[in-house]
């Protein structure tokens, strides 16, 4: 029953991706690869390459920040953990519209952080920091960080605390114990988290629009753009099918990796 709910809309989408677009109208049933062919042009190839690169960068930064953070978090008293979890969930549940708006305010000339730097004398004049690639990256890492922590949280909270104790007893410093015992021990968790966050970042559809220039638009933005503004559903569907395949493949890979770790 549940399957039908999702399989039917996806099936229709796959079908639409082969349909023929009627200019100015909607689409008519057909079976053609034109939509996929268009996708293979240099422009969309560039967008695809940029999307994948950006998502990989976001995933790497988010995991590098979130892993030590979560490691420290699960060692805190339960009450502290709960407060942080409430805070992280609140940030995570925020709409991309709101995160984008909040960061564009923080990056703006009149209300942004540069005003603070001017106030303490580091800068001479307040400047606008967005739109720029760095702004997009910051916004997306901000959005991905709570997600990353929550993906890592179960694995790290189930980690056997005696492992670190053993390393410490044998004379390792806390940093050494972290890098030689914890990180290698959770290698598969880290890789599968990287993949999950990568897919999460691929789905970002508004931050590149709100914080970046059109050169920084990702595949998700283009899909929205084609479906709504260009009303070219078949082409949007073809891109979406491609995105589904990439994402599903990666998610499957991360599930396999996760299972292997449990089996050990």
């Amino acid at each position: 029953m549940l399957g039908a709910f999702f399989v039917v809309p996806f099936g229709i989408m796959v079908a639409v991706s082969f349909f023929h677009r009627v200019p100015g109208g909607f689409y008519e049933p057909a079976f053609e690869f034109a939509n996929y062919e268009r996708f293979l042009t240099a422009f969309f190839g560039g967008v695809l390459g940029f999307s994948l690169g950006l998502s990989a960068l976001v995933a790497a930064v988010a995991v590098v920040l979130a892993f030590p953070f979560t490691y420290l978090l699960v060692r805190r008293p339960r009450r502290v953990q709960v407060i942080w979890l409430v805070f992280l969930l609140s940030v995570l549940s925020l709409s991309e519209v709101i995160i984008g708006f909040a960061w564009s305010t923080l990056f703006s000339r009149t209300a942004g952080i540069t005003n603070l730097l001017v106030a303490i004398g580091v800068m001479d004049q307040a400047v606008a920091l967005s739109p720029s690639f760095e702004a997009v990256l910051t916004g997306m890492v901000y959005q991905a960080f709570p997600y990353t922590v929550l993906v890592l949280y179960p694995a790290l909270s189930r980690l056997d605390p005696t492992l670190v104790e053993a390393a410490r007893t044998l004379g390792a410093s806390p940093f050494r114990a972290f890098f030689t015992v914890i990180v290698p021990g959770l290698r598969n968790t880290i890789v599968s988290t990287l993949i999950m966050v990568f897919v999460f970042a691929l789905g970002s559809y508004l931050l590149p629009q709100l914080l970046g220039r059109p050169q920084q638009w990702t595949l998700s933005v283009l899909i929205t753009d084609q479906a709504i503004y260009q009303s070219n559903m078949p082409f949007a569907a073809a891109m979406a099918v491609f995105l589904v395949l990439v994402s599903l493949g990666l998610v499957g890979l991360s599930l396999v990796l996760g299972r292997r770790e449990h089996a050990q």
Partner: protein
Amino acid sequence: MSAWPTRLVFALFGLVLAAPLAVVAGVSVNEKKSLTFPPEGFSLGWFGQIFTDGEWFHALLASLGVAALSSILAVLIALPIAWFLWRWHAPFARIVQVLGLAPFILPPVITALGFLAFWSELGLYGQPWTVVVSHGIFFVTLPLVTLTLGFDAIDPTLVEAATTMGADDRAVLRTIVFPLIRPYIVSGLAFAFVLSLNEYIVAYMVVGFTLETLPIKIFNALRYGYTPTMAAVTVLFVAVAALVFGLIARFGDLPRLLGAWSHRDE
């Protein structure tokens, strides 16, 4: 690790995570209709405007209505599935869980486009109620996860005792199962409610031109420039999310809901 470097790390993360929200909160109490921080003067007028300005108030009502109805729908779909998997120890439980998670892990644009294609194929594109159904299905994962945990937490001996005393399935459900999983129903409902309230892309693709929810309204307003009401609405959203998750944490076991072992804390 000693206490104070850890504290410093947490303080730093907290500061960065809170910074954009703090700036928006500051901007929302600006007296003038300009985007400046630190705020000039103090006024809660922009919060009042959410309720007095017809367009914003309408969007607020639309959002609340969609979130309430779709979270109830999500629970109504999830409840029989979770019950069935628990009662019959279905071997395909894992597959159902992964299927339920799929739309949640995949880029939301895909789900949104799938629903758009689905509703327009049925000729129902743009009907305001379609967003309720779409959200109800999209967010079914959340109550499904909380309810699965809830059913797992039921002590099987209680059910056995009731069955031995002659209770049928329905009596067991009414007198034992339902009271025990009620907190999990509420938390599933709450998760779905908050996420539906904040959801943009599915709502936009399905009913973007006929029904304006708050996130859609903010985005549309952003394109024509800035008004402080957006900042006020944003503060409202953060407050609602913090309140709801705070309540779940107060009355439920949040670390367990998020996948931590619970017995370690006992």
